[in-house]
């Protein structure tokens, strides 16, 4: 395979090249590193590059491949969102609070992917502490969308989405708490999957909202996502919330027919307020699935509208407690010359956290505080159950639920930062899925004014296999996922 096609190749294609030794891991890794050096200054998708370590790991992978010992991911370069703890490599959550934090441990997901032979190229930019939908709250600069560098890549896994779209690596990890894999995947024209809550271990992933966070693959195709999900999945005794359920072979049935697959279309997702062109694009995508044999079924998710309010109580509440450990005492940012303990806490936290993070901590603290707990937090937990029940009822009539992943295409940098509510509305289609703990994925479904639109598929708990199968069948008969942004290299 000619080297300059590498940045467009899928992981599955690359594995074939690597295993037949037509390509070495070292060549591939070097090629990715070169691409990052050339294009990342424009995008700021990657905030830490691990050149030496990557080449070392690539050399090791080559030894294994030479011996014929390679596994399904051996030699594949990948990126990790900077929320995954990586031993010996800075893990910042794109925050000043953790700017110099070098964890002495790996997240379970990181160890599993490394043990599978992947090569870590570096860490990707994100919204600070995963709080955002545009990667604009990063303390280390915004990330630009490779399709239009005046636009956002989405968030919070914006760096990862941009990097995969720009060909820096075929694979990246992301995390999704309210849509942070699916929405950037949609805005950057790539495939992103948020597994069922509990499918993938959270150990070593810096916590935002504990009952909502999930790690997942961000790739070019559903097949690549399946490849990665296979390695990431599985119970972890170190994470009490990881589920002890069987991990199926995700790829084995991906090629099967979706004849008779019932796709639920929630009336609430296709209301008046949905942009007409987005609706059209999604409709066209659904038509493709119908051509593959699927049936469309009208369903009702009555509490869809309450999803945002529910999410924006629960997530900040859990986050407000999860972020209390950042106090300048044992790790992370400490203010200069604290005059007493109160000063240490207040200045370290005020100086270390950005505005959006502080805002959410305030909201979360308020929602849990005396006199407000019942009206806010407890109420939200109750509505959460209603939302979960909505999905359960819906899944009695369908196997997969479909709709847009985001309300529109990538918006201009700075265009939604004035009003927090405008930003929060970005996640209207995605956050209910986290509240219900279900799996969801976004696949490229077309372009509007040359900007990508994603189709979201939502599945029953632990039924990623059905999502992957539907997505794969869709990608077999469409080309949207193959379209690459035309990127001018820096300096050219």
């Amino acid at each position, binding site marked *: 395979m000619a080297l300059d096609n590498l940045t467009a190749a899928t992981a599955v294609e690359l594995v074939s090249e690597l295993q037949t030794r037509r390509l070495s891991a070292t060549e591939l890794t070097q090629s990715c590193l070169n691409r990052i050096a050339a294009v990342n200054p424009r995008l700021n998708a990657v905030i830490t590059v691990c050149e030496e370590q990557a080449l070392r790991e690539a050399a090791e992978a080559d030894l294994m491949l030479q011996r014929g010992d390679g596994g399904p991911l051996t030699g594949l370069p990948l990126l990790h969102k900077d929320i995954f703890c990586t031993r010996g490599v800075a893990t910042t959550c794109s925050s000043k609070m953790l700017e110099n934090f070098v964890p002495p441990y790996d997240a379970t997901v990181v160890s599993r992917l490394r043990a599978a032979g992947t090569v870590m190229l570096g860490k990707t930019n994100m919204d600070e502490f995963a709080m955002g939908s545009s990667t604009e709250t990063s303390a280390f600069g915004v990330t630009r969308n490779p399709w239009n560098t005046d636009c956002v890549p989405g968030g919070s896994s914006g760096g990862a989405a941009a990097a995969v779209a720009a060909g820096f690596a075929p694979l990246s990890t992301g995390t999704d708490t309210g849509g942070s894999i699916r929405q950037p995947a949609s805005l950057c024209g790539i495939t992103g999957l948020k597994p069922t809550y509990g499918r993938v271990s959270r150990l070593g992933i810096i916590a935002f909202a504990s009952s909502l966070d999930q790690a997942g693959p961000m790739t070019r195709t559903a097949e690549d996502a399946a490849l990665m999900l296979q390695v990431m999945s599985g119970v972890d005794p170190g994470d009490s919330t990881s589920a002890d359920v069987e991990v199926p072979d995700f790829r084995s049935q991906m090629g099967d027919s979706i004849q008779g697959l019932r796709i639920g279309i929630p009336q609430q997702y296709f209301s008046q307020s949905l942009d007409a062109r987005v609706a059209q694009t999604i409709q066209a995508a659904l038509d493709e699935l119908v051509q593959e044999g699927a049936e469309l079924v009208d369903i009702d998710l009555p509490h869809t509208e309450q999803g945002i309010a529910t999410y924006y109580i629960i997530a900040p509440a859990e986050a407000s407690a999860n972020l209390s450990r950042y106090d300048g005492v044992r790790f992370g940012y400490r203010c200069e010359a604290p005059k007493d303990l109160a000063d240490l806490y207040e*200045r370290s936290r005020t100086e270390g956290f950005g505005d959006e993070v502080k805002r959410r901590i305030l909201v979360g603290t308020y929602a849990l505080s005396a006199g407000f707990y019942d009206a806010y937090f407890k109420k939200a937990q109750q509505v959460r159950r209603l939302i979960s029940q909505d999905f359960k009822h819906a899944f009695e009539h369908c196997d997969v639920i479909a709709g847009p992943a985001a309300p529109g295409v990538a918006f201009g940098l700075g265009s939604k930062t004035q009003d927090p509510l405008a930003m929060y509305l970005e996640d209207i289609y995605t956050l209910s899925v986290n509240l219900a703990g279900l799996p969801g994925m976004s696949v490229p479904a077309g372009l509007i004014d040359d900007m990508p639109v994603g189709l979201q598929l939502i599945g029953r708990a632990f039924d990623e296999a059905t999502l992957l199968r539907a997505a794969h069948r869709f990608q077999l008969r469409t080309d949207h996922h193959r379209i690459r942004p035309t990127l001018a290299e820096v300096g050219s």
Partner: protein
Amino acid sequence: MPTTPADVLSVAQLARLRIEDSALDDVTDRFGRILDLVAQLQQIDTEGVEPMSNPHDMVQRLRPDTVTEGDQREELQAAAPSVEDGFFLVPRVID
């Protein structure tokens, strides 16, 4: 429900966050808008609905009572801002 700067300051105190006087009005305004958004939940009937903390009906697994972590002090304190004789140091706490 209107929120006042005083409300915001008392919540900030609970969270050990300081808000500059110059920013207080803006913070109060944004904070208030978010609260208006989430207050709409009040209208939903949740009589008899069990709050949901975890999305699945999972039960806590139990870990056998064995020691699996040894002394990692050096490694774990490498990133600490202020350490002496193995203690983490903070400004003197008056009890």
